[in-house]
Structure formats: structure tokens, C-alpha cells
């Protein structure tokens, strides 16, 4: 698999972009159930992975994505352009991931501390150290910066798509991405 910047997304087929960028115009003829079925087959797994990177929990990520599909099913009539169903799903996933993290922050704020980070320990034992360090550093970033980095470097979305998914401007996307990368670099420097 070849890696590249999201700007050349059209020329670089990655598994994620391949699945996320598929937006058949035939969706216009689908009804809500058909749309859910078809989009589930092609988008569910990438969206769950995207959500897992955002919320750091597979089960929660699945719930988030399922919520997004249910919301899309309910809003199918209002989706004037069915081709934008993917963008709708992505935006819903990002928004709900934010809600989950917000809720989790509140819970962790009032929860008794001292619980070990089981996942990090497991992952640290299983996966290579570098990747674990990067992921760990990623989760220390503010939510917006982490969202921007994940959407850009995992989902390989363009700035416009990231702006649409996050509900911010393209300039803000650039800013969050640059600041996120700088912060990640600083964290990795400190770890090393």
C-alpha cells in the first residue's frame, strides 16, 4: 500500500479512501432501508475504525456508527442529495464521537482515580512500541486536533471534507492539523 497526502486522493487508492469515497449515484433511487444496507456493506467497517480512533473504544465506536446509520435512516427523506449520505454519516460519527468524549470526560472527572489503563497495557504488550507511543501521544491531543489528524491521516479526507465533517472552516482545519502535528511531535520528543 502506498502512502501519500490526502490532496492526491484521486490518484492514490487506499483501502480507506476506496471505501469511503465510493458514492454511487444510484443511491438516489434507494429507499432508507436499501441505503442502510448498501452503505453498511461498504462503509460500516471503516467508520467503526474511524470512530475507534476517536473514542479509543471499539464497542463505543460501534454504537456511535450504528447511531449514525439510524440517524441517516430517519433523515433519508430529508437528504436532498443521497450522494451526500457518506458525508452525513461521517459528520454524524464525528459529532457523536465528540459527545461520547465529552460525556467520558465528565465521567472520568468524577470517577475514582487510580484505575489502570488496561487497553494501553494490552496494546503495549501486543503491538510495537512506536505505534503505541504515537497512538498514546495522539490521545493526549485536544479533541479537535485529534479529529483533524485522524480524518486527514487515516480517512485521507481533503480539507474541505474534513471541514464538512467537523463543521468548521478549512482554515480552522489547517490550523488544527498543524497544531496537532506540532503537539504530537512535542509529546513524542518528551517520551523519547
Amino acid at each position, binding site marked *: 500500500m502506498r*502512502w501519500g*497526502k490526502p490532496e492526491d486522493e484521486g490518484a492514490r487508492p487506499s483501502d*480507506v479512501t476506496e471505501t469511503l469515497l465510493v458514492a454511487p449515484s444510484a443511491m438516489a433511487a434507494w429507499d*432508507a*432501508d436499501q441505503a*442502510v*444496507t448498501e452503505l*453498511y456493506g461498504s462503509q*460500516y*467497517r471503516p467508520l*467503526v*475504525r*474511524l470512530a*475507534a*480512533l476517536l473514542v479509543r473504544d*471499539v464497542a463505543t*465506536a*460501534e454504537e456511535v*456508527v*450504528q447511531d449514525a*446509520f*439510524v440517524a441517516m*435512516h*430517519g433523515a433519508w*427523506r*430529508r437528504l436532498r442529495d443521497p450522494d451526500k449520505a457518506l458525508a452525513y454519516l461521517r459528520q454524524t460519527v464525528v459529532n457523536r464521537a465528540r459527545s461520547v468524549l465529552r460525556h467520558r470526560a465528565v465521567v472520568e472527572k468524577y470517577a475514582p482515580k487510580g484505575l489502570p489503563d488496561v487497553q494501553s497495557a494490552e496494546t503495549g504488550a501486543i*503491538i510495537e512500541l*512506536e*505505534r503505541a507511543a*504515537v*497512538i498514546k501521544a*495522539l490521545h493526549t491531543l485536544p479533541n479537535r486536533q485529534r479529529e483533524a*489528524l*485522524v480524518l486527514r*491521516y*487515516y480517512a485521507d479526507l481533503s480539507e474541505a471534507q474534513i471541514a464538512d465533517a467537523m463543521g468548521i472552516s478549512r482554515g480552522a482545519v489547517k490550523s488544527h492539523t498543524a497544531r496537532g*502535528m506540532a503537539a*504530537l*511531535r*512535542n509529546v*513524542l*520528543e518528551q517520551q*523519547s
Partner: protein
Amino acid sequence: MTPGDFPADRLRRALHAEAEQVVPAPDGLQRIRERTSAAPRPGLWSWFTGGWKGPLLAGAAALTMAAAAMTATPSAIDRITSAGNPRETGAEPLPKSAPSTSAPAAPAGTPPAAGDRRAAPASPECDSATAAPPSPRTAAPSPTRPTRTAPAPSTAAPSSPAASNTPAAPSPPAKATPTPSATPGTALSETAPDPACPEAAAPHATPLSSPPATAEPTPTRSPDRDTRPSPTPSAPTPTATLTTPAPADTPKPPTPSNTAQPPD
């Protein structure tokens, strides 16, 4: 690889490797189906109120309400004015109709023809009016009857008996009492329109119809069936005439005529 040249590729690899380990449960679609089937489906109402249709429907409803209110207002105003201000409404027509009827009636009262014409148009009104409030009419007429001039005819509209009475009724002394008041009676009649209905009904009968002529207006005002209010306004002036005739009525023979009238 130093942190200073931390590349995007490194982050990308880490992210993809992390994501690779995420394997969603296979029953995801089933869960979604269950939730979508449990959730209320967007029905006709959502289509009805969705998007731009909601404000449009609200505007249409507001226009409909405004139109209904505008169309309903005239009749409502009429009812309110007629029921709430009977005196005012009655006061205006009284002077108008009274002079008109009284003027021709009193002078031409002797000629029944003139009275007929006046009464003719009024009679239908009286009929309609009398039809609704027979009881008050009969009550009022009984006193007026004697005068023959006034009220009796109103109910007597069925004046067929009144016509038969005419020969007898005029002759009785009741006429004498009205006649003295005749000259004043004209004035009074102008002001007092009570006997209007009687005139219309029995204009043929008596020359005294002048008072009845005055009575006509009252029905015209009260034509609405609210005879009560209309008579009251006219009452002040006519009361005098009525009171005077009242004694005449009781003694008079017209009582039979009265009795005959109710059956009609």
C-alpha cells in the same frame, strides 16, 4: 527517525495499524435494523410539516383564520349591535318610521286605502314580528285593542276578525277617547310608534289607525323578534296612549275580538 522530522507517514501507519485491529461485530446490521424498525417511521405528517412546508402551512392557516374572522364580523356586529344597543338602533328607526307612517296615517288615516298602503309594506314585517312574539303582542294588544287603534290589530293581523270588528269597534266609545287625543294623538303617534303592527293588520278597520300606524315602527325595529326591547324605547310616548286606551279596552266589547284573535 527523530521527533523533529516526525512525518505524516509515521502517523498514518500508526493510525492504520491501530485501525486494523478494530473488528466490528458482525451483527451490526441486525442491530441497526432493529433500531430502525423500532423507531417511528417518518410518515405523512413529517412530509407534511417537513422543510419549507411547515411555514407555508402556518401562513395558510393564518390567512384562513383571518378570512373567517373578516367574513364572520359583519353578522357578528349586527347581532351585537341589535342585541346590545336595541335602544339606539330602535331610536333611529322609530322617528323615521313613525313620522312617515303617522303623517300619512293620521291625516289619511280616515281613508283606509292610504293606511293600507302604508300598512301593506309594514304588515309583512308585522306578521313576521308578530309571529315570533305572539305572547307579548297579545298582551300589549289587549290594551291597545280597545283603542282599536293600536295593538289589537298587530296580533289581529289575522285581521279578518278585525275587519268584522271594524264596524263594531270603531263605533264604540274607544274611538271617542282616541279622537280627543287625535290631534295630539298625531303628535303622539309620531313619537309613539307602538301600534304599527295593528295598523298594518287592521288598517282597513278604523280611522283611528293613526295610532296603530305609529305602532308600526316598533315592529320594524323589533322585527328581529326581540320585541321586548323595541317596545320599551317607544314605550315612553306610547305608554300614555296605551294607558288611556287600556281602560277603554277593558270595558269594550272588543274583548271578544281579542279572544277571537288568539285562535287565529
